[in-house]
């Protein structure tokens, strides 16, 4: 299949007004796009007159696959959606499922989920900031950021056995409980490693003349546009929309913890970078409060509710545990959620990550729609790009933090 032209409007190259315009294909395999997305740019010299995105180069049928897998199995798939902060997707998915089934998870589970979601937010923002600076020519910040991400990976690996896609949450609880040495690891990370890396990146970029020149006033998104174009998360907050689901609809343990919502008025690439840097600090604040206050008790909801997978000792040593294990793994048994539909959202690092689940009473969802923040933010991209020069393109792309797997699903 040849690469088809994807211009929706008619470029009439013969007409005298447009004969100087030329078209540049950008992607789908290009270093500055990080992953797979394609842009067709109409250029006047170096100025972008029109940018037409062409996406779908990583469309893998996540939502169709969700209709085939049950509420626990699908967590492995949502992991691979925003793959630089997989835990946040898991937390969001099971947040929606638990709302559907009306499960109140245990306090210990809430705190652990909060900690891992915030750790994932730190690692997501680190990669975003590092890659943005890499695109603008600063490779050192990228190396510092990645070094710190390895520490977060170590924490996830100790907790779940997988460093990249932990698949750690389950309906009504977690895969396993965490150990004390894990808590010590998180504490060391928050107290020692993270502040150092954060200060390093700040020192490298915050007053860097090249970085400032290339991000200040570039890709400005006004507050009205941000709301009108459905932006959420750091992108909207950098434009002055003080909207954070952690405050607005407190879920997990966020209601008990103290933190601020970081906002800026400028709405340019620099504002988005600064909001992300400051949000990391707030995340560290949340973790340092939560990690000292993890309640004791079980991580799974009561076994009598027949919702969570019993642990191995219960499965092998008691008849109730064995029966429940069977009930949850036989394809015609599993959960019996109400026949209804609902939307539930959490604040992922990129913005509002919501799931619209339609249940027909079976053990697997009838339809599970994702509200992907990257998809919504990339729709804003042509608007941000118009009138800028082509050299600003990596700056804007890096500041929006587009993840192709979440974009295309």
């Amino acid at each position, binding site marked *: 299949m040849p*690469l088809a032209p994807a211009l929706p409007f008619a470029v009439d190259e013969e007409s005298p007004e447009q004969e100087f315009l030329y078209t540049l294909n950008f992607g789908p395999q290009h270093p500055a796009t990080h992953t797979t997305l394609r842009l067709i740019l109409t250029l006047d010299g170096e100025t972008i007159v029109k940018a037409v995105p062409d996406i779908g*180069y990583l469309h893998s*049928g996540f939502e169709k696959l969700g209709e085939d897998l049950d509420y626990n199995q699908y967590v492995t798939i949502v992991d691979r959606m925003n793959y630089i902060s997989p835990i946040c997707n898991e937390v969001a998915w099971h947040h929606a499922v638990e709302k559907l089934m009306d499960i109140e998870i245990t306090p210990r589970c809430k705190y652990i989920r909060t900690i891992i979601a915030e750790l994932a937010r730190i690692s997501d923002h680190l990669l975003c900031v590092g890659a943005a600076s890499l695109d603008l020519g600063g490779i050192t910040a990228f190396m510092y950021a990645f070094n710190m991400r*390895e520490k977060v990976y170590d924490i996830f690996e100790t907790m779940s056995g997988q460093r990249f896609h932990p698949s750690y949450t389950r309906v009504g609880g977690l895969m396993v409980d965490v150990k004390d040495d894990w808590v010590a690891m998180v504490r060391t990370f928050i107290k020692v490693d993270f502040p150092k890396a954060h200060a390093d990146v700040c020192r490298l970029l915050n007053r860097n003349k090249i970085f400032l020149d290339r991000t200040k006033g570039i890709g400005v998104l006004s507050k009205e546009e941000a709301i009108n174009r459905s932006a959420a998360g750091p992108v909207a907050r950098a434009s002055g929309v003080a909207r954070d689901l952690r405050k607005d609809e407190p879920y997990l343990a966020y209601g008990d913890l103290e933190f601020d919502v970081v906002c800026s008025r400028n709405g340019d690439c620099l504002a988005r970078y600064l909001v992300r840097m400051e949000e990391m600090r707030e995340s560290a604040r949340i973790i340092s409060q939560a990690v000292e206050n993890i309640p004791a008790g079980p991580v799974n909801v009561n076994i009598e509710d027949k919702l969570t997978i019993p642990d191995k000792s219960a499965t092998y040593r008691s008849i109730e545990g064995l029966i429940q294990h069977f009930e949850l793994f036989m394809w015609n048994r599993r959960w019996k959620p109400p026949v209804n539909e609902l939307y539930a959202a959490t604040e992922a690092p990129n913005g509002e990550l919501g799931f619209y689940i339609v249940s027909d009473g079976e053990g697997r969802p009838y339809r599970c729609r994702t509200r992907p923040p990257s998809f919504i933010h990339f729709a804003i991209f042509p608007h941000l790009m118009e009138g800028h020069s082509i050299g600003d393109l990596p700056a804007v792309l890096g500041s929006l933090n587009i993840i192709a797997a979440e974009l*295309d699903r």
Partner: protein
Amino acid sequence: MAVMPDFLITKLDWVANLARANSLWPMPFATACCGIELMATASSRYDIARFGSEAMRFSPRQCDLMLVAGRVAMKMVPVLQRIWLQMPEPKWCISMGACASSGGVFDTYAVVQGIDRFLPVDVYVPGCPPRPEQLIRAVIDLQEKIQATGTVNAREFTDRTTYEGPTSMIKTLELDQTMVVPGDFNTATRQRD
């Protein structure tokens, strides 16, 4: 003390292989999660530069190793094939991760079930995603393969003129089953009249 001669007698193939194996320039075709692990392999903790493969070049004309990291969707296959054809010989291909090697968990309408159906692959790396150590092991394996089989004028590729992948799943449909899909019009992709 023995006097070392100031010359060396060896096979030209061996020297060429030594040079090629230890300076593989990867073309990172990073589409999904494995791409981030590829970045982790290239960054400070794992440091693929120890094996001479740190010179990631995003332009296919300058590369000799294609690293397909991540699932390849139907829309992406023509791009992948075009980039493969643009790379100069001799060239090798590492299929990184379960998705690139077999489709992995994504057995859906849009994901091809292994890039070896469309490209000749030299080394497969299992894992979802593979750890950086596994990718480094794959690079070492490829170096051994090049050292063992390579020739200076790439003769080893000239015999390999047939399709080497798994059984091709291209099928011709009945006329009433046909539909408009991208690809070759002689196969299942015939346009409905």
